């Protein structure tokens, strides 16, 4: 019992620092997710709609990005961009690296969703003289989102957990905040348990939601 009281006391004591980290985690999550969604949909459209040349570029980009660890990509972007004269904060670098990395995973999800769209709809749109661009914008993209919902929720969770990787380039997000507190207080067990609890508070409802979406779409 005493252990719990102590944990609760520590939880209150350090919560302000954790909440500060949480805000960076959320910003990074939103930014990376927006980038990953937009780019992922772009790769999926280019590849799935067989756009000449660009379609192949998109496909190989996705394959290559998925073949390299995100940590390596993050180092690459963080150290490389300044070398070619592009200065940016660690938050911006992390957002770009995570956005690019997860765009490849999102593209796979969207590509699979795109395949589920009935070909007759495209033909119908063509018969109504819609241009290729309009068909993609009005028919393909909205339905791709619907069909790839379970996979996309998965991506949302993936990106949130991926933000922890940004701690290695000193983005002051949750994991980084925890590392700093544990280094100064030597209460590693308590601090890292708290950290896990913070992630669980956000992720557990999403994982449970994902499961029920999967159950429904499996039927």
């Amino acid at each position, binding site marked *: 019992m005493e252990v719990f009281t102590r944990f609760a006391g520590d939880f209150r004591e350090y919560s302000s620092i954790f909440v500060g980290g949480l805000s960076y985690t959320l910003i990074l999550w939103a930014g990376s997710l927006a980038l990953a969604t937009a780019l992922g949909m772009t790769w999926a459209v280019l590849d799935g709609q067989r756009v000449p040349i660009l379609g192949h570029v998109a496909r190989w980009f996705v394959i290559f990005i998925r073949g390299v660890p995100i940590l390596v990509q993050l180092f690459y972007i963080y*150290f490389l961009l300044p070398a070619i004269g592009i200065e940016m904060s660690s938050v911006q670098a992390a957002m770009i690296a995570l956005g690019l990395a997860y765009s490849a995973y999102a593209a796979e999800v969207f590509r699979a969703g795109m395949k589920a769209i009935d070909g007759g709809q495209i033909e119908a749109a063509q018969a109504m003289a819609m241009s290729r661009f309009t068909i993609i914008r009005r028919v393909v993209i909205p339905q791709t989102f619907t069909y790839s919902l379970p996979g996309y929720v998965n991506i949302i969770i993936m990106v949130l957990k991926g933000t922890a990787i940004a701690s290695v380039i000193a983005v002051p997000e949750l994991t980084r905040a925890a590392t700093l507190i544990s280094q100064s207080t030597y209460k590693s067990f308590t601090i890292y*348990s708290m950290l896990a609890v913070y992630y669980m508070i956000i992720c557990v409802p999403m994982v449970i939601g994902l499961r029920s979406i999967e159950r429904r779409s499996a039927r």
Partner: protein
Amino acid sequence: MIADFLVDAKRFSPLLLDGLWVTLVVSFATLICSTLLGAFWEALRLSGSAVLAGVSTSAITLIRSVPMMVQVFFAYFALPEIGIDMSPIVAGTLALSMGHSAYMAENFRLAIQSIDKGQLEAAQSMGMSRIRTFSRVIVPQALKSALPPYGNSAIMILKDSSLCAVITVPELTRQAQLLSAETFKTMNVFTLAALMYAAICIPTALLVRYSEKHLAGAKTGRAHD
């Protein structure tokens, strides 16, 4: 620029290949441990006891909710405080195994659920015991449809083994970090490291995609989170 890269590649390759070897050892150990642990979670779910199934589901949900990076930190920095002291490589392997066991369990669950219910009923009506049904009807078919997602998990594990760099396991990413700090040839070093990862992951991924298309009844592998 390319000549420069090739010179560096020759110079740095031995150290990076040492790192790659550690990466492969960690990944292989993780693959085995997470398979066993994942099978254990799935066995709990199928045990027929609601309590055990609940334990399995909650464990999987909680594990999936915590970033792999945090699990690695936890194993290396937090566990020694309660008396579990491990070398970096053991702590890293343990954390990755724990983290990936949840995805392994999900792979197995989806594979088993993809089997037609009618087959179970048929087996039952023929008087086959539960264990016999499991070993003769479910497992052979589930193995087939679990193969592509299993391959995806293997790739994921290989890539996640890079997280062990942060707890000083001398694997590929860590070696690249050290080399780039020493030589300031960041771009060449990390390009080389990225190519080494890609050289293993891309052929495996293409193989997975091929097997997805050609294994009848195999479901598309799910993306990991």
